[in-house]
């Protein structure tokens, strides 16, 4: 049971992924193609750059001038003993008409000798291409054998791509099976970046040459390459996302890929874009689309059709299966004839007519804009207690009310109006409907929002007493403006409707209006250094110092009274050394306090302390002996 469910889910996800197919994010616009042609048209100095320029321009369909000069150049630069030189010259000569490269038996032998397992893939490719371009015979089966052997030895992307390119030059009777499978293997090596780009980590040139080679071989054997539609579009994105090229080789690879993707037998990616902004209005009722291939060449035999168009806001379908008409290379559709309301519409466009087309279902967002008119603008001053009847003044756009309105704290000022579409008379609700009150004298402005009720009638009421804080209670004459704006409106409105004199109750307005000074320099902060603590007066400190030292006197007196003396002092070296050492240690303490740090002190202390300890040990031992002797 759950197996069925899982299978169903799988099918559903496949269907969903198919529905959101990738469309090309990048392609070569006309200016890109011109830039590419410019780069390829630069003056060439050697055979290799001549090859890239001439063959590249041919692929872009550009005109090559001075065929005779180019041919002369090729012949003069040719080195008949080098396979590379022969390759460049032969390929370039094929691209221009009426240029024949002279061939000798030696040339043929050199080229044939290069076709073997021991040459590099590049050599085999260049030799086979040269042989083919010069019209010399070659043994296709041998070449296939050499290629297959080389693929095993050189397993990198460029080598296999060259193998594919070489195979496309062989006769159709050769056994291509193994080589054709390489296309699928290489496809598996591509890196998927975010589902949008598909490229080799070796870079743009490798990706572009792979595309060229894959399609050229597939066309040659007339078997569709195993590339899915999404993969083709992702390859298009990768190859054409770079708009300036570092080298001739890179430019050549992009030109080759563009040519391959524009006219091969199997996959032709379609690029659909709106000409100008995708907007229609009464003044411009037609939606114009450009439908081209990746090189911005218009597709000759395409039929463009709107499969469905629905309003984004209401999801109601406006169009279904409506065709575009081709008019001077641009596909047009008169959308306003379906009388859409203003707003945004989601179009699904299908391009048919050629079953090679890839990414031929495109989603497009189209905006329908219109003009707005303000009608039934009524201004009135209403008493709060409703005792006095309201007097409504009607004002027509764009004129201003003749008299000004006065409202004090007992009254409300009210405004009502309607916004309608000029062309259809439908009521609109734009995004911005503001009422701005501007005090001419002080420059203050206060903005309110006017909101529609459920009958789409816009109302604005100003309660003078309630709103006095917004006005800072400044009485005076305020100009009233109505501001209407929206993305789908072609004529935003700024209308000075009337002057309103507001009288506020408290004149507690500030005497001078201070503009809200947010961006003036702030007062400077003075850094307060840490003030030293208050010290007691020196007299006190000195007195206490004397006081603290006084017990020492007392000690001396007491010792004297007790009869403590040093009469027992033995002048042995150890005791002298001990006393000297001890005195030195105390001196070291003083020096530590004044000059040294802990590490230095410890160093000196170990030295002096060591001496003192030894001497003291000796001295005390002697004393102990003396004591026990006395006992």
């Amino acid at each position, binding site marked *: 049971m759950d197996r069925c469910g899982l299978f169903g889910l799988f099918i559903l996800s496949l269907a969903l992924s198919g529905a959101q197919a990738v469309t090309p994010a990048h392609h070569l616009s006309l200016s890109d193609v011109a830039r590419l042609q410019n780069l390829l048209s630069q003056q060439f100095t050697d055979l290799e750059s001549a090859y890239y320029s001439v063959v590249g321009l041919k692929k872009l369909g550009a005109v090559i001038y001075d065929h005779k000069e180019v041919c002369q150049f090729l012949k003069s630069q040719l080195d008949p003993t080098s396979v590379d030189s022969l390759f460049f010259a032969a390929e370039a000569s094929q691209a221009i008409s009426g240029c024949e490269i002279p061939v000798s038996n030696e040339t043929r032998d050199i080229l044939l000798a290069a076709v073997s397992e021991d040459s590099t893939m590049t050599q085999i490719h260049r030799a086979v291409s040269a042989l083919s371009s010069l019209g010399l015979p070659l043994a296709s089966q041998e070449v296939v054998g050499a290629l297959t052997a080389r693929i095993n030895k050189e397993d990198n992307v460029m080598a296999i791509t060259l193998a594919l390119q070489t195979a496309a030059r062989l006769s159709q009777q050769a056994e291509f099976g193994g080589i054709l499978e390489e296309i699928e293997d290489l496809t598996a090596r591509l890196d998927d970046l975010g589902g949008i780009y598909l490229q080799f980590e070796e870079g743009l040139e490798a990706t572009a040459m792979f595309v060229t080679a894959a399609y050229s071989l597939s066309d040659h054997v007339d078997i569709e390459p195993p590339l899915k539609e999404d993969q083709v579009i992702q390859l298009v994105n990768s190859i054409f996302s770079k708009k300036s090229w570092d080298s001739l080789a890179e430019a050549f690879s992009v030109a080759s890929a563009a040519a391959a993707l524009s006219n091969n037998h199997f996959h032709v990616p379609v690029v659909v874009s709106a000409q100008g902004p995708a907007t229609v209005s009464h003044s411009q009722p037609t939606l114009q689309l450009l439908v081209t291939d990746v090189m911005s060449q218009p597709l000759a035999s395409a039929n463009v059709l709107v499969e469905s168009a629905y309003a984004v806001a209401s999801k109601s379908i406006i169009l279904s299966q409506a065709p575009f008409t081709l008019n001077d290379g641009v596909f047009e559709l008169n959308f306003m004839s379906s009388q859409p309301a203003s707003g945004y519409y989601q179009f699904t466009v299908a391009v048919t007519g050629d079953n090679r087309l890839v990414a031929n279902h495109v989603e497009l967002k189209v905006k329908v804009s219109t003009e707005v008119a303000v009608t039934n603008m009524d201004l009135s001053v209403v008493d709060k207690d409703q005792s006095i009847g309201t007097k409504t003044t009607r004002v027509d756009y764009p004129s201003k009310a003749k008299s000004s309105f006065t409202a004090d704290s007992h009254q409300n000022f009210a405004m009502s109006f309607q916004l309608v579409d000029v062309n259809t008379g439908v009521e609109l609700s734009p995004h911005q409907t503001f009422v701005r009150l501007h005090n001419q004298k002080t420059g203050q402005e206060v903005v309110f929002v006017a909101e529609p009720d459920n009958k789409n009638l816009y109302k604005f009421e100003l309660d003078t007493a309630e709103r006095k804080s917004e006005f800072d209670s400044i009485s005076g004459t305020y100009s009233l403006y109505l501001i209407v704006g929206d993305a789908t409106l072609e004529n935003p409105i700024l209308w000075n409707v009337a002057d309103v004199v507001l009288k506020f109750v408290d004149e507690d307005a500030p005497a001078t209006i201070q503009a809200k000074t947010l961006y003036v320099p702030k007062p400077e902060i003075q850094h307060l250094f840490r003030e030293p603590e*208050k010290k007691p007066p020196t007299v006190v*400190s000195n007195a206490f110092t004397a006081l603290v030292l*006084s*017990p020492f006197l007392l000690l001396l007196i007491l010792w004297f009274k007790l009869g403590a003396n040093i009469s027992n002092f033995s002048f042995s070296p150890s005791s002298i050394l001990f006393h000297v050492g001890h005195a030195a240690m105390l001196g070291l303490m003083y020096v530590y306090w004044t000059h040294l740090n802990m590490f230095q002190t410890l160093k000196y202390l170990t030295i002096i302390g060591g001496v003192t300890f030894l001497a003291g040990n000796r001295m*005390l031992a002697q004393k102990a002996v003396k004591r026990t002797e006395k006992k």
Partner: protein
Amino acid sequence: MSNSVISVISRFLEEYTTTTPNKLKVVDAYLLYILLTGALQFLYCLLVGTFPFNSFLSGFIACVGSFILGVCLRIQINPQNKGEFLSVSPERAFADFLFAHTVLHLVVMNFIG
């Protein structure tokens, strides 16, 4: 009440002066000196304020430490306590006293600022 206190004190002083050996009296005088010094430092701190607090601390700790070490020395060289300090001779006690004082002075000097 005060009578008995006075009599206790006078009795104590009498016993002290007669029974205590001279050596211990010397040490006691030293201890008294240390005590007074510490008390006077504390008095200064109470009266005037703790301004160089680290200095006050180091001075006070010096007094307290010295007093304690002095007491230890006195206990150890008291002949009446000989039974408890069989392995420690008076010379050894004095040597310990000196070593501990060295460490104390090092710390005090470090902290005095």
